[in-house]
């Protein structure tokens, strides 16, 4: 038997270590959204502020904007909220109040401030399912024509905004 063959297990071992090291760095929550470059789905749901007013897809499209899925039951949304207040000057933010209690949500906006241009009240989470939402907060970037261009799962922080969302929003604003 040649000596070289003795190194085969070592080489295999090193290959496995490299593979596992790479696997460790992958984010299991980094799930590609099925909706990227798809149109925002049709819906017809009440507005959070006025239950009688029905909102549809037409109400949320038209401008490059962020669509933010939130709920008062979600601790990370609380954490995210102050930064959304800052962001609301720079980009329109559309809220989807996801599986929430209307009064709680209105209280929250009263007390903490309202960064949203409008809020869709998705009590049963039906729009959420059509959007592929699996938790909150989630934030989508949509273009003028109403296509989903990016999805961010988790809190939008200054870093996320500057590194990922803002460059895309600027680029989309440049599009006709």
């Amino acid at each position, binding site marked *: 038997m040649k000596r070289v063959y003795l190194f085969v297990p070592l080489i295999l071992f090193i290959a496995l270590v490299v593979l596992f090291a790479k696997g460790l760095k992958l984010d*299991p929550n980094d*799930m590609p959204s*099925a909706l990227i470059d798809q149109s925002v789905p049709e819906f017809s749901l009440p507005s959070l502020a006025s239950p009688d007013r029905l909102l549809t897809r037409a109400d949320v499209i038209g401008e490059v904007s962020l669509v933010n899925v939130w709920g008062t039951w979600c601790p990370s949304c609380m954490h995210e909220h102050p930064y959304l207040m800052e962001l609301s000057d720079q980009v329109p933010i559309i809220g989807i109040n996801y599986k929430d209690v209307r009064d709680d949500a209105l209280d929250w906006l009263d007390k903490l401030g309202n960064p949203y241009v409008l809020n869709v009240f998705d009590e049963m*989470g039906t729009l*959420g*399912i059509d959007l592929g939402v699996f938790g909150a907060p989630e934030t989508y970037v949509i273009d003028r024509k109403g296509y989903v261009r990016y999805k961010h799962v988790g809190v939008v922080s200054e870093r996320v905004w500057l590194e990922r969302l803002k460059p895309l929003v600027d680029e989309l604003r440049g599009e006709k």
Partner: protein
Amino acid sequence: MKCVYLRVLSLFVLLFSVVSYAAIDTYEFNDEQTRERFHQLNGELRCPKCQNQSLGDSNSPISTDLRAQVYRLLNEGKSDQQIKDYLVERYGEYILYRPELAGHTLMLWLAPLAFLVLGLAVVLVLVIRRRNTVQSGGLDTTEQQDLEKLLADSGQGSAEATSEVESNKRD
């Protein structure tokens, strides 16, 4: 003795433990077949939030919602494939524990087979090689000569050693 009983007991506990659905919903079905399809689908679909659990295993809110969707679609008379397509459209192929056989999933499906073939090939090569060495009768002529020489030397050596011991005794 007590220790043996304990071992037998723990063996039984291990052998007869079953995976149970963590989440309990009450869904009523028109027939047994639909119920089975429901459970089958819940087992094959993946919870998008927890990812290492199936829809049926998980009690995260999103899984509860998606089970409700599966139930609704089943009652609307949709086929298993249509239900899977519905969820894949929204959550991506990620949601399938049993991905479709397609170009980009080919490796996933064929890799185990490839490894099996590779393993068999290695075993086969080793077996054939070993058989060849056994059949060739071990040593060739030069090696045989070396061996005889070694044996002869060591025979002499030990004889010398014995005579030395004997001469010591005499002194």
